[in-house]
Each structure stands twice: as C-alpha cells, then as structure tokens.
C-alpha cells in the first residue's frame, strides 16, 4: 500500500479532495439514517468544519471514519431517537424519465404503504437498502462506509427487500 503523500489534511487541496470524495456519501448516509427533519447538509458542513479544526491530527486515510463518526454523533445529539421521516417525492424522479420509458408511477396507496414499510425497517436495514437501491452503491462500498462486512450488508439489504415486498404485496 503506498504511503499517503500528506500526513494530515491541513493543505487546502487535500482537504478539498476529501470533501469532494466523501461529502455526498456522508450526506446520503445521514439522510437515509436520520431522515429529512435534521438538515443533513448542515451536519455535513459541521463535520467538515470539525475536520478542518482538527486537520493536523487527522491523516487523509483516517478522514472518512472521522467524518462519519463526527457527523453521526452530531446527529445523535440532536436526534434523540425521534421517528425517522422519509417522504417520497410527488413527481417521478427526473433521471428515470428517459431510460425507463415503461416506468409507471404507482398510486398514492402503494406509495404510502411503501413509506410506512420503509419506516418499519430497522435503521441498519434501511440505511443499507436505500444506499443500495437509490444511490446504486455496491455492497462493498456500503460495507466500507459502515465499517461492516459485505456479507452483513447483503443480509441487511435482502432482509429489507423481503419486508418491503411483503408489505406492498397486491397493491397497485
């Protein structure tokens, strides 16, 4: 494994590269884990500011786990185990319009049931499943993000799919 070029992230170029590499993943992770009520964008900012303030103590290869831990803790402090709310968008996602012409918008009854089903998932299942299905993350990527094994990720995602399928069975 090559040695890191910088032993800390204080250089703005290093810092910016880390920001570009991790900020979106961190944002999505926070959103799927905690929902929309606690502005995940702000928490990402806060976590990155904290990274800057501690830049001399954090090596680039430790930056990711620093950011995820700090952001997670920031959320937990505020969150205090409130119900996670993830609302579906009223219109179909733009990026699906062209590539899936056969895509059919499901009725509100189906979507409401799906939303309830997602909320009933365990936090671990939900985060892994949404990162996978919505953000298209591979199992391996999610495993790295959450610091768990690929097998565990696969188990969570498959489990989540089973629950959701059962709950929306027969609805249109």
């Amino acid at each position, binding site marked *: 494994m090559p040695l890191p070029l910088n032993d800390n992230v204080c250089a703005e170029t290093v810092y910016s590269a880390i920001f570009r590499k991790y900020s979106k993943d961190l944002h999505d992770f926070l959103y799927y884990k905690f929902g929309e009520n606690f502005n995940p964008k702000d928490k990402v*900012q806060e976590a990155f*500011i904290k990274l800057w303030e501690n830049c001399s103590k954090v090596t680039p290869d430790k930056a990711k786990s620093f950011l995820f831990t700090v952001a997670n803790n920031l959320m937990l402090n505020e969150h205090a185990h409130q119900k996670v709310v993830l609302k579906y968008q009223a219109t179909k996602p733009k990026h*699906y319009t062209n590539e899936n012409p056969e895509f059919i918008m499901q009725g509100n009854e189906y979507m409401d049931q799906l939303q309830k089903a997602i909320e009933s998932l365990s936090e671990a299942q939900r985060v892994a499943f*949404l990162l996978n299905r919505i953000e298209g993350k*591979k199992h391996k990527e999610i495993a790295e993000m959450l610091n768990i094994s690929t097998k565990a990720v696969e188990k969570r995602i498959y489990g989540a799919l089973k629950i959701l399928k059962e709950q*929306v069975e027969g609805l249109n």
Partner: protein
Amino acid sequence: MTHEELIKKWLDNELNQTEFEAFTQLEDYEDLIKLDHSMQRFKAPQYNAEVELKSALQQIESRKTKSTNWLKPMMRVAAVLVVAFGLYFYVSGLETTYQTTIAQQIDTYLPDDSQITLNAASSLSFNKRSWDKNRLVNLEGEAFFKVAKGSKFNVVTSAGTVSVLGTEFNVKQRANYFEVYCFEGSVGVETKNESYVLKPGESFRVVDGNIEKLSDASAKLPSWLSNESSFENVPVHLVFEELERQYNITINSSNIEKSVLFNGTFTHTNLELALKSITIPLNLTYKIDNNVITILRE
C-alpha cells in the same frame, strides 16, 4: 441458482446475461421492478459537493478572521495599558518642582513631612518615587528647611551640598552668593573644596568667592520669613539683586562701587521704605522711573 441467490446478485448488480434472463422469469419479477422503481421517489435531496465545499471553505475563512477579530480589541486594550503605564512611570519618575516668581513665597512639604518655605525667584525639586532611596532636594535660590526628626537628606545647589539631620536651616544660593544658616540641630555643608559642620546660630557663606564662617546666635528664623531681608557685611549689589527679587523692579546701580558693604534689613512690603533703608545708611539716593530705579551718589 436459487431464487434468493438470483435476487441477491441482482441487488448487487452482479447478474450476467443468462442470470438476468433467469431473473426476468421469476414470478415476482414485476413486483420487484415496481418496488425498485418506486424506491427512487425516496431519493435524498440533491447534493452538490462543489457548492457545499465552497460554503465550507467560506465558513473556515470567516472563522479564521473571527479568531483574529478578538485580537484587535485586545491589542487596543494592551496599547492603552502600555501608554497608561508608560505615562504613570514617566510622571512618577519626573521631579516634583516648586517654583516662585519675584515677590512670591510658598510653603510646601517634602514626602517625609519636612517643611520648606521657598523665597522669591527660587525653585526646588525632588523625586517623590525615589525619595525613600535617595533623599535629594535640588535648590536654586533661597529656602528655609524645617526638617522632620530622624529624616536625613541632602540639599543640592550649584554652590555646594548641604546635608541635614533633624534641623532647621536656611540655604541661600544666588549669583556669587551662597549662604547656609543653621537655626537648630546641625548642618553639614560641602563645597567643591571644603566641608563644614554648622551648629545652631552659625552660618557659612561664600560671597564673591570669599568663604566666611559667622556666629550670630540672635536669629531664631530667617528674617525673610517675616517679610524682611537682612544682611551682614554683604556687597551692596547683592542687596540690590535681592531687592529686585522681592519687588518687580530693575535696579541700575552701575554708579556704585562693588566694594561697598551693607549691614541691615529691608522690608518686602513697601518699596519706598525698602529703598530708603538701603540707601540712607550708605549715603545714596535713588530715582524711580516706572519700574527702573537708578541708584545715585548723594
């Protein structure tokens, strides 16, 4: 390949062509695709890393300047303190000075409570801060000292230094005239060449370079304290100089020989009377023209 394995592979986007065919043949294929498409509507809000990075860097920048912001007011406070301390040391390091003009006398105290009376056209200074280490009084002119008991200090004049220990004495230092009169206790006088110790009633003087040591037990206080100047065998031009210091006048005595000596007193309260008391005994007359007085032979 089992149903579960196929789905798991699909979930990780790992299906090959044949596996994909098999997957589409699953009885729940349509349900899965429907569910998967619907999931997209739960997508997290747009996140633009570049925009967010810019705003983060701005925040960092503003925090940096904020951290120097507190420094500025602190620097101001520090500057004010430095100036204040500087001023304090400057002022306290300065000499305390008392000065009298013509026809003026003032009473004052030294830091050790010794009393000083300063005669006309004289100045006296001392340093309050270093007083404890260095009891020095600089005198130009004439002053009467009533020194507090046990308090030792030196009076420095251009003509000599007077050292004192709990006593009352008068120092008169004028042009060509230096006189120390001891009224109580003892006084040490040190000039460039000589040093003397005066007992009460004794005086030491240097007039036009001539050193004299006189004994006259009569006086209890210098006469000028009661608004009278007294002289004993003093060249008359020095008497006229003293007269100029007590009245705001100019005296022209160029006609009079310097060797003429004067014995006696003059008052500080009445110019005519003072002039008469000097001139009559010496058989001189005077002429007043505004503030200029010309002394004439009779």
